[in-house]
């Protein structure tokens, strides 16, 4: 079975960065998985996610989406972004429109869908993320949790097969977190793969079926969460030990 998303031996150094941010990071995601990406601050989690979406281009290594190598042209990037959606850590960085409905419609229209289809996608994504009653509220009047769900809806409206979420649950209260995970679980049931970068070990333990661990620009392990928590070295890397 070909993987939905393959990152192979990615190397990357930020312009002006002293150390490389990625040194041969590899990851393979199949359909319908729930993956937690762990690793201390600066391990390279965000950088890896930006590569998966074609926002950064590796100096060496390859990104493959549904078996096809990512082509860094406008068209190639759009094809990849149709399949791989990225939710940023701070929804205020992602929501650009003062209108919730218009913000969610941005992705579908960029995919070249007509107005009627885009409207349908907006309604569907808004219902899935439980923001349908916020559609005509101004963005700046929303709470943090509401903003996150709107940002998520904006990505889901493009109907991607992989959702990459960068530490989105960190600032949420327990109720909001449950709501977000309920959305994730609904997506997974539809065959979407969800990868969540997080520092929350209970998420890795209870929610994820696969845990990827990053350290110094490499993915040092990808394993079922029980295995990761048994391994003394991995426990140390994810901060599970005192």
């Amino acid at each position, binding site marked *: 079975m070909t993987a939905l998303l393959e990152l192979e031996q990615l190397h990357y150094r930020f312009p002006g960065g002293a150390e490389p941010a990625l040194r041969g990071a590899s990851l393979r995601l199949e359909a319908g998985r729930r993956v937690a990406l762990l690793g201390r601050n600066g391990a390279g989690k965000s950088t890896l996610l930006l590569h998966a979406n074609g926002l950064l281009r590796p100096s060496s290594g390859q990104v493959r989406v549904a078996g096809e190598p990512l082509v860094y042209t406008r068209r190639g*990037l759009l094809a990849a972004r*149709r399949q791989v959606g990225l939710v940023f850590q701070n929804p*205020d960085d992602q929501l*650009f*429109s003062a209108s919730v*409905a218009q*913000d969610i419609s*941005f992705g579908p229209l*960029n995919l070249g869908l007509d107005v009627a289809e885009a409207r349908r996608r907006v309604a569907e994504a808004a219902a899935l993320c439980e923001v349908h009653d916020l559609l005509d509220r*101004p963005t700046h009047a929303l709470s943090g949790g509401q903003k996150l769900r709107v940002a998520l809806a904006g990505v889901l409206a493009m109907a991607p097969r992989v959702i990459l979420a960068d530490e989105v649950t960190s600032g949420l209260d327990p109720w909001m977190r449950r709501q977000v995970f309920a959305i994730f679980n609904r997506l997974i049931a539809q065959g979407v793969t969800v990868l969540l970068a997080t520092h929350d070990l209970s998420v890795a333990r209870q929610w994820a079926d696969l845990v990827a661990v990053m350290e110094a620009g490499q993915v040092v392990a990808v394993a079922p969460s029980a295995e990761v928590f048994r391994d003394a070295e991995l426990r140390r890397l994810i901060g599970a030990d005192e």
Partner: protein
Amino acid sequence: MHIIDRYAYSNAIRELDPAQKGGLALIAMLFCLALDHPAVGLLTLVWMFALATLWAQVPARAFGRALLAEAPFLLLSLVGVALSVSLAPLVSPALQLGPFWIGSSAESLALATRLFTRALGCAAALNFLILTTPLLDLIELLRRLRVPETLIDLMSLTYRAIFVLLESLQRMATAQDARLGYAGPWRALRSAGLLGSQLFLDAYRRSQRLQMALESRGLAGPLRVLPLDYRRDRRARWFGAALAASLLLAGAWR
């Protein structure tokens, strides 16, 4: 900013097509400017107050406060027109102040009155519009009027950025305050300077992340979004006609 925004989003005609609300305000302003008569300005004020409070259900207090905020600017510009300062008593009545004579003539007073009522009418019309129509809808209206897309994108991004920046501003100021950053005038000055540069950096970094986020959703040239849905109200036409007719009558009155 916040207070106007609040009514703009919560008034009774929020859902109304901004073209209708904008049309009413435009009629009022055009007549105020074209018909040079104090009664027109005053009648416009009455009309706009009535539309805002009775039709849109904006509290009279909010309308009054917006107008009061503008009043000093109006009055200040009037003083220059109504009064003349000279070294000799050219007009009467005139008041001597040291070597200067400050005076006012019947003509200049009449001119000032006309200017004031005119400006008042225009201000009232604008207040009606911004108290009932969120900026978002006004931008949408401009989009429909085929204003260049770059300009539209710039306006909508700026509008959104204002609120994000206000939030950072509040957060940073609170953090400084908690560490006694505003105890004493010198420290306050230093803190304010620091805040300004921080805010600039914050805005710059945000714009970079926003760019990435937009690209990840397939940004391609202008920001494409769905048009907003509005309700149209047939009464708006009648209001427009009655407004125009009554202002014409007032302008013809001698």
